[in-house]
């Protein structure tokens, strides 16, 4: 009994410690954003700003963050649309048809997930140049990023579809619906939660995309917020408060979405996507 308690509180303390370690950079970002430049380099460091300063509007305007964030949104939205349109049907087929060939396909899909963007960017750059896609840099990024996250989407969605009983689709087909009709009116509504959660994940991932945007978009006005952050990094810049404010503006909406959806995300990723 007592031993159990000790173990429980020990584990709890350990968990809190790790959460603290993980969340510390986030906390430091927010705190630094509020500090003055001299306080940032103060030794010993202050854990709460002595003289908080609010430079959000200043950074927003100076950096033209509205343009950057709009580009980020366009890219994230485009990627999500393409991925859900092309990946949902694929995930369903992979969930329904079970044989050796499909296992091979699934394995290949998973393998593609392993290749890092920094490795893929050179061939992608060359191909896009040849087909003339470099005229549309944001579209290029959308396509490249969609290809990158599609495997993840397929694998997660497939897990959701596996939970929808096959008989429901069969009943719909006997009842007078086509395969596609049964898929759209029966299967998709039942897998809705899983599809939504996976799409949100894809959206957030693409919102933070950096490698492709950095390499494929040269025009300032078309770059997303991740790339825009770089313009702080001049040779003699030390505007850490500005950098952190920028980051905070960029990250906070994502965090809010995550917190709001965290229950659905967790349940959608583990089980019970039905109901």
């Amino acid at each position, binding site marked *: 009994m007592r031993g159990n308690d000790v173990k429980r509180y020990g584990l709890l303390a350990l968990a809190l410690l790790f959460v603290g370690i993980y969340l510390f950079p986030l906390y430091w970002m927010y705190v630094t954003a509020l500090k003055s430049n001299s306080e940032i380099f103060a030794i010993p460091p202050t854990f709460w700003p002595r003289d908080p300063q609010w430079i959000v509007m200043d950074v927003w305007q100076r950096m033209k963050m509205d343009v950057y964030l709009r580009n980020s949104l366009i890219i994230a939205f485009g990627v999500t649309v393409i991925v859900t349109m092309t990946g949902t049907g694929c995930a369903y087929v992979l969930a329904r048809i079970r044989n050796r060939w499909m296992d091979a396909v699934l394995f290949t899909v998973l393998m593609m997930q392993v290749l890092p963007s920094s490795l893929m960017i050179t061939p992608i750059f060359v191909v896009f140049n040849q087909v003339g896609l470099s005229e549309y840099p944001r579209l290029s990024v959308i396509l490249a990023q969609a290809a990158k996250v599609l495997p993840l989407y397929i694998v997660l969605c497939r897990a959701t579809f596996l939970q929808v009983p096959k008989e*429901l689709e*069969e009943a719909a087909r006997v*009842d007078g619906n086509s395969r596609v009709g049964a898929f759209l009116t*029966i299967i998709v509504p039942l897998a809705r939660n899983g599809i939504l959660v996976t799409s949100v994940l894809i959206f957030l991932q693409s919102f933070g995309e950096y490698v492709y945007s950095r390499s494929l978009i040269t025009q300032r006005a078309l770059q997303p917020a991740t790339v825009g952050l770089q313009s702080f990094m001049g040779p003699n810049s030390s505007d850490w408060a500005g950098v952190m404010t920028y980051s905070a503006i960029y990250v906070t909406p994502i965090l809010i979405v995550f917190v709001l959806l965290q229950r659905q995300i967790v349940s959608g990723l583990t089980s019970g996507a039905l109901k």
Partner: protein
Amino acid sequence: MTYQIELENINKYYGGYHALRDISLGIEPGEFVALVGPSGCGKSTLLRTIAGLEGISGGTLRIAGETVNDRAPRERDLAMVFQSYALYPHMTVRRNLTYSMRLKRRSKADMERSVEEIARITGLESLLDRYPRELSGGQRQRVAMGRAIIREPKAFLFDEPLSNLDAALRVHMRSEVRQLHNRLNATSVYVTHDQIEAMTMADRVVVMRAGVVEQMGAPLDLYDRPCNRFVAGFIGSPAMNFVDGIIREDGVSVRLDLPGEAVLRFAGARPAGETVTVGFRPEHLSVTMAATGGNILSLPVGFVERTGSTSYVLSSTTPEILLSVPERFPKEQGSVNAQIAPELVHLFSKEDGTALL
């Protein structure tokens, strides 16, 4: 005469596995046909083949005279009730019932009228706005039935629709399904592994084993004249007794492979010296006081099971012989004399099990 559903040498392969072998079967309009057989014999596969959910590897399938081999399920105009009911979880009972009508873009008033009628027939009036998860097993079963009959299809296909219900409800639904069939004058194919269900509900029973139709016919014909040992053992509960035996010199009686002078006369004649399997049903053995005389087996009693109305007496011989006695059998009695009429003795070939009489 056109059959409502006609199967001609239907074959089905799953890869290298031969799931249905040369199945031929004609189902007349209004007929209630039950498919029975042990688990894995291909009943569901046959039903799904008829519905169009599985492709046909060989043979011809006709529905109302038209060949439908290559038609999609929705073009066959059949209704199917699944074992799991397959109710659409995200739709209310009402929307479940009208799913097929909405696909056909029937008018609102039309649908309203049909739902009303079906709800009355199936007793679902008060449940129309509930979701399937809010229903009991029996109510779900009714919704599944309702969703099938609202369509007025060319035929109904049932795949073990009652097997998820408890025993009492199952017996009740048995008669209800049958009454529904009669009222709608529908054609039904009913899959079950429960031979009692098949015997009580069907006009015709098809017994399958390992993808082959072993025998088909009226329920009592199958009971009285099984064409082989498998059907004899499968139809009837408790199952038929089987004992090896040799035909005696006279050609009209058989010596059983049991201790003592176990000889039974049978109706008909077989060549003397032939080795056979003798079959007789537990309920056809009647307890008698006489120890000798016509067709009496003297058996040592091994075990007695009393259910109240019927006692099951198991002999201590090898193989064991079961008697079903319609009275209370004293537990302490050491032996029993059982008599059977010669017409009720079945003989089967020892090699392939076909009936010899």
